[in-house]
């Protein structure tokens, strides 16, 4: 073969490959236009809270893969955008999602603060927003487009206050992180304690990510409380519990479902023993749909057990997908919103979910205690 002929063949091959690629793209393109519905998901994928956002994405991918494999008449695509848990970034993403006319619903954000900032944009544009974790009481009040799949502190606070009152704790110290959420923890709980005839001996906020709680612990102990109620996530929780143990403090600790994560026990070790908290997801529950999610999660996380937040994200995505399905064919933002609002007894891994008239998820809470290095459900 001469050199010229060889070049020729190569060129021909390139051309035919190119043609084939073009043809495939064209087909894929038209398919995409016809049967794909787009959703947006804003969540922190980098920065201090990236671990949460990455878990949410993993949970969303599990839910999405199941939906797309189920032979529905259309496929769904989720656009993930990194908000870094920054309110300004969250608002920018919200504008971007609003401008993309193909997006009919949005999931996220992670923190109440960012979710509420972005909610202002979604409210104006009429794009339904479903957050898996924003538990600040004001979030769902922003407009008829805000939904959430988490028990609020207005629900969890009184529940825990009643639990602690039943245990005979009268004088309670409350600490929480200095955020919108942390304030709702203290607010929701303290009022209920007083209503039950107890007293809040001590109440203080700390900065998220604080390393050394020993000064704060000494200060709490000076107030001599019967028990400590805490609003923190597992990282801060683990540090707090360990330093509590170091200082030899034996006061019982109660916490919210936000601290419910296997990482709490992993990081705090035996210092986590005896911590009481509430939850609405138990990975040990033998129900098949829960075990299915736990298995899928383990397969993608090197055997790690999911905490409550990923479970909420998984349910939130599935609730949104169910709403999109109900609103199809040709789902619009308005139709998806109405379908979301009608969600009733959705059988999720975090219990049955119904949105009430205020678009709040009514969740059943379970009481849990850390015993022998595991979360064990307790009756009282």
């Amino acid at each position, binding site marked *: 073969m001469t050199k010229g002929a060889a070049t020729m063949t190569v060129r021909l091959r390139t051309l035919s490959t190119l043609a084939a690629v073009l043809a495939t793209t064209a087909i894929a393109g038209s398919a995409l236009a016809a049967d794909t519905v787009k959703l947006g998901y804003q969540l922190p994928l*980098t*920065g*201090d809270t*990236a*671990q949460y956002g*990455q878990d949410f994405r993993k949970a969303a991918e599990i839910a999405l893969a199941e939906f797309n494999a189920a032979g529905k008449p259309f496929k769904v695509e989720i656009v993930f955008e990194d908000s870094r848990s920054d309110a300004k970034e969250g608002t920018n993403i919200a504008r971007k999602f609003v401008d993309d006319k193909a997006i009919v619903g949005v999931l996220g954000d992670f923190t109440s603060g960012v979710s509420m900032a972005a909610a202002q944009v979604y409210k104006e544009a009429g794009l339904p927003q479903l957050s898996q974790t924003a538990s600040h009481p004001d979030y769902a009040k922003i407009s008829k487009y805000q939904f959430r799949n988490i028990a609020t502190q207005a629900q969890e606070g009184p529940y825990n206050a009643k639990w602690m009152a039943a245990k005979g704790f009268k004088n309670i110290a409350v*600490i929480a992180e*200095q955020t919108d959420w942390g304030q709702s923890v203290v607010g929701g709980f303290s009022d209920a304690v007083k209503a039950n005839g107890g007293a809040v001996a001590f109440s*203080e*906020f*700390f*900065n998220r*990510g*604080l*390393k*050394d709680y*020993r*000064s*704060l612990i*000494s*200060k709490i102990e*000076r107030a001599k409380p019967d028990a400590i109620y805490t609003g923190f996530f597992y*990282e801060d929780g*683990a*540090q707090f519990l*360990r330093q509590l143990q*170091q*200082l*030899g403090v034996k006061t019982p600790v109660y916490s919210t479902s936000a601290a419910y994560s296997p*990482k709490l026990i*992993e*990081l705090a*070790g035996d210092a986590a023993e005896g911590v009481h908290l509430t939850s609405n997801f138990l990975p040990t529950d033998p129900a098949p749909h829960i075990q299915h999610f736990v298995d899928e999660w383990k397969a993608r996380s090197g055997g790690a057990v999911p905490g409550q937040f990923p479970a909420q994200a998984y349910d939130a995505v599935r609730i949104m997908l169910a709403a999109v399905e109900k609103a199809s064919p040709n789902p619009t933002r308005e139709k998806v919103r109405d379908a979301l609002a009608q969600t009733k007894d959705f059988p999720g891994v975090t219990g049955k979910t119904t949105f009430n008239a205020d678009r709040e998820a009514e969740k059943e809470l379970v009481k849990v205690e850390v015993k022998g290095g595991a979360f064990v459900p307790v009756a009282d």
Partner: protein
Amino acid sequence: MIDPYYLQQLAIGLSLGMTYALMAIGFTLIFGVLNVVNFAHGEIYTLGAFAGLVLISAVAPPIVAVIFGALAVGALAGFSLERLAFKPFRRFTDEASLKSRAMRESTLLSSLAVSIVVREALEILFGSEMRSLPFDYLINTPVRIGPVILVTGDFIIFGVAAAMLIGLQYLLTRTRIGLAIRAVSNNPLGAKYVGIDTDRTIITTFVVGSMMGAAAGILMGLYYGAIFPAMGFVPGIKAFVAMVMGGLSSIPGAVVCALILGVAESMATTFVSSGWSDMVAYAFLILTLIFFPNGLFGARRERV
């Protein structure tokens, strides 16, 4: 008799201050003494901690070997950091470039860039969540002294920080390399003219300072029992404040100020909400800059 509560807060403050001092020593050596703007020290600290974590999970060596491993990684990281973010800005050897402030301060951005790349890379490699260290390695067994409770780590950190401080003071004031570091810091051009190998001096300082940063990282990881990619940020700020308060070029000054900072923060928690105790560091920084522009312990020095 003093209220045991205050004694405990004082002890906590001193132990907190020692952890800041541990970070501040290496930081001050590079930033203050060598007079090179370096914002990547926090990531060296994080790298040291992760090196320790990898070593522990791979071969589970004795704790001393873990620290030596972290030191080696720190030395390598310091060398690479200097090569990547600092050396390129010294390639112009004409007098104008050597005297240029812009040239010197451009490393603010290049070192910041390296720090962001390292942090994000660690997040991709290890994930951004906190990782625990095996409990047998941790240095936080409680120790009771009268009414006060400390942990074993407090004594180890005190010992290491004291050794670093004394060692560095000896290096800087009694050895030829220390003399060279001070000469380069004082006047890089002059140092070059009298025959000092400025490149080598700068690299050595980075290696030594970064070894200290990495050792601080793994010690703090073992002390608090958790390691994560963003862990270097807060100690970096505290070390920076201690250094500026101490007068930039004085390592003992930085250590004393780190202790003042720690005690002030823990005492402040008694009187104000813990959420505000971080304000103490910034308030000190601002007050120092207003009333003691040369720092509390800073010797006057001509800035080129």
